[in-house]
C-alpha cells in the first residue's frame, strides 16, 4: 500500500510539537501538548485507512470510500480526549487554587532521598545498625562524589 507522505509529515509535526509542550512544567502547556498529541494520533490513525469519499452508502460508491473504521476509532479518541482535557483543566484550576500556580512540582519524598544520595548517606533508620561511621555532618566525604 502506498502512503500519503504529507500526512506522515503532519503526524511528525504534531508529535514533535506535542512532545515539546508535554515536557514542560506548566500544566497548561502539558494539556496543550496532550491535545496536540491527540490530534497527531488521530491523523496517524487516519493515515492507516483508505483515502476516499465519505463512507456513506449511496453517496460514495463502495470502492471509493474512505475507511469508516479508522474514522470511528478517531471519533472515539476525539471524544475521550475532550473528557480528559476537561479533567486536566480542572486539575490545573485546582492546582492554581491551592498553590497559586499550575506548575507541576517535584515529589518531596524523592527529593529527600536524592539529597541523601548527594550527601552520600545511607538509610535514615533508627533501628538499623549505624550504617557508616560518618554521620550526616561528615562533610569531607560529601564532596567526593
Amino acid at each position: 500500500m502506498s502512503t500519503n507522505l504529507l500526512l506522515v509529515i503532519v503526524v511528525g509535526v504534531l508529535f514533535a510539537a506535542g512532545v515539546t509542550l508535554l515536557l514542560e512544567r506548566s500544566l497548561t502547556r502539558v494539556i496543550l501538548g496532550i491535545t496536540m498529541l491527540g490530534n497527531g494520533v488521530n491523523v496517524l490513525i487516519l493515515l492507516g485507512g483508505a483515502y476516499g469519499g465519505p463512507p456513506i452508502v449511496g453517496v460514495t460508491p463502495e470502492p471509493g470510500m474512505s475507511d469508516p473504521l479508522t474514522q470511528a476509532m478517531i471519533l472515539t479518541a476525539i471524544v475521550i480526549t475532550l473528557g480528559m482535557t476537561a479533567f486536566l483543566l480542572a486539575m490545573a484550576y485546582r492546582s492554581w487554587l491551592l498553590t497559586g500556580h499550575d506548575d507541576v512540582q517535584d515529589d518531596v519524598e524523592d527529593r529527600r532521598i536524592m539529597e541523601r544520595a548527594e550527601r552520600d548517606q545511607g538509610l535514615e533508620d533508627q533501628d538499623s545498625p549505624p550504617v557508616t561511621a560518618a554521620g550526616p555532618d561528615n562533610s569531607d566525604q560529601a564532596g567526593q562524589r
Partner: protein
Amino acid sequence: MIVVGIIASVLLCAAVSLVLVRIVRGPTTLDRIVAVDVLLAIVVCAIAAEAAYTRDATSLPILVVLSILGFVGSVAVARFSPRSRR
C-alpha cells in the same frame, strides 16, 4: 470548473496565510480571536466551495454547525477577556 476551483483555492490559501500571520503575531488574545473567527469563516467558505466543486453535499451539516455555533468560542473569550470583567 477546474479553473474556478484553482483560483478559489489559491485565494483562500492566501487568505489563510495572512490570517495565520495575525494569529501568530497577536499581539493580544483578542487579535487572535478575531483572526480565528476569520479563519473559521474561511473554513466555512472552503468547505462550501469544496461541496460546490465536487457537487457533494455531505459536508453541509458541518456548515450548519459552524454557522450556528462557531461564534460561541469567541464570545467566551470576549466575555472573560481579562479587563472587561471589572
